[in-house]
């Protein structure tokens, strides 16, 4: 037994990699269906959007790339589904250079297939990607066309029915930013603080702890923290709109709810690793002290 713990401290890390791989692969192959509990910050975000009126405009910013797609994609899709269900109009932009545009296009394509009655240019618009996020946000507050003269396909905004009445971000009821890194923070510290538009953020789990300070100071209306936050939002959406369950029941498409099974198993494994590692460490320390 003593030898086992001593060997543990010098275990080849490739065994740990194998454990990690199996902990994630097995719940994908054999789904468990663990329950998801919701938190206050996600519920506030959901209820804020629920309180918006038909025809209100929501600004959705894809500020993430493939490096955080499993966390942010489900959030963005859930928010767009809610907008479609509540007949809210939404404008999509992309401020993250590395892959954000592809993910936005893919997500919008998915939602357009799920809601065939949505009309491009009337119910939603995709403005595409633009460089210089901070400068873009400054322009959006006064003149959207100054930053985005055309939509993603090159159509001038003046020719898009939905954009004819929408001149600046001040006319928008909410900004939702699915973000990795600083761009999401700029929506709060630059746009909200200077224009006052409510912001909901969907950060990656890595940056989520920081945003609790912004939640406490009232600069955020709500937050969807990482894949857990996305899973919570999916649960709230299914609960309020049972017809949405069909998009989350499939075993093929990736959803945050499905991902939580693997997340739970791997957390258990990592916690066990930490406990075992510390136990072995203290045993070794005690042995050294006795010697």
């Amino acid at each position, binding site marked *: 037994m003593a030898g086992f713990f001593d060997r543990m401290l010098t275990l080849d890390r490739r065994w740990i990699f194998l454990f990690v791989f199996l902990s994630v692969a097995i719940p994908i192959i054999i789904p468990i269906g663990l329950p998801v509990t919701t938190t206050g910050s996600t519920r506030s975000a959901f209820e804020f959007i629920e309180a918006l009126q038909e025809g209100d405009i929501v600004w959705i910013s894809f500020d993430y790339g493939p490096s955080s797609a499993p966390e942010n994609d489900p959030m963005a899709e859930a928010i767009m589904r809610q907008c479609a269900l509540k007949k809210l109009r939404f404008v999509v932009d992309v401020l993250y250079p590395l*892959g954000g545009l592809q993910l936005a296009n893919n997500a919008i394509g998915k939602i357009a297939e799920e809601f065939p009655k949505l009309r491009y240019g009337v119910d939603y618009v995709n403005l595409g990607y*633009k460089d*210089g996020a901070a400068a873009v946000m400054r322009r959006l507050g006064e003149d959207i066309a100054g930053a*985005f003269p055309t939509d993603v396909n090159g159509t001038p905004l003046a020719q898009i029915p939905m954009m004819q009445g929408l001149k600046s971000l001040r006319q928008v009821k909410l900004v939702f930013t699915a973000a990795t890194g600083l761009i999401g923070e700029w929506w709060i*510290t*630059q746009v909200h603080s200077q224009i006052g538009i409510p912001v909901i953020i969907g950060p*990656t789990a890595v940056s989520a702890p920081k945003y609790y300070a912004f939640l406490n*100071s009232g600069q955020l209306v709500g937050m969807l923290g990482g*894949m857990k936050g996305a899973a919570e939002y999916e649960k709230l959406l299914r609960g309020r709109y049972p017809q949405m369950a069909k998009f989350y029941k499939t075993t093929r498409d990736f959803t945050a709810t499905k991902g939580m099974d693997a997340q739970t198993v791997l957390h258990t494994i990592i916690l066990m690793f930490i406990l075992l590692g510390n136990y072995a460490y203290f045993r070794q320390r005690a042995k050294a002290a006795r010697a």
Partner: protein
Amino acid sequence: MAPPHIGIWIAAFLTLACFTFLYKDNPFFRFAESLFAGVSLGYYVGIVLNQTLMPNLFEPMGENFGLNWDLVVPGLLGVLLFMRYVTKFGWVSRYALAIYVTYYIGVEFTRKLHGEVMPQLGRLIRPITSLDPATLVSSVYIAGVLSVLVYFFFSKEQDAVTKRISRLGIYFLMISFGAAFGFTVMGRVALLIGRLNFLILDWIYPTLGI
């Protein structure tokens, strides 16, 4: 279920090539890594040209030069940035660099004060009008913020009192860093879940006809 098309096979091969690094460094991983670097840079070219330079620079000047004649300046400043690679005239790029950096620094200045310092101080300064659980929690919050700020004050040597307050700040920071670690584990694991979901459900299952 339809068998996976060539794109999925390419994506699966590249994914597995990256995963081989976990065993040890090898030519497959280095191939994937180099391809990643090259394709990322090529992606930048495509996206900047199609989404920023064409609609914001070339098309406005082409359609109405009278209204947009001044856009020649940022275009030339942009080209000037690349002069840093010309040894003899590299100093010329300082103009473009100075404008670019200091503009964004100016925006950052207003953002930091208006968007971070003032609202966070506003949360901190709350009147204590009653002794209830909410006030107790608020007091813990205020104690945390102030002790962390004392910890980060390096302009003066700490005395016995400030050392104790700093220690409290360190404890708050350790809780925060522990929470950050927990969240970081969640974040990194989520990426792996996404990739394995693709490999198993989008590649292996359709290949096997499941």
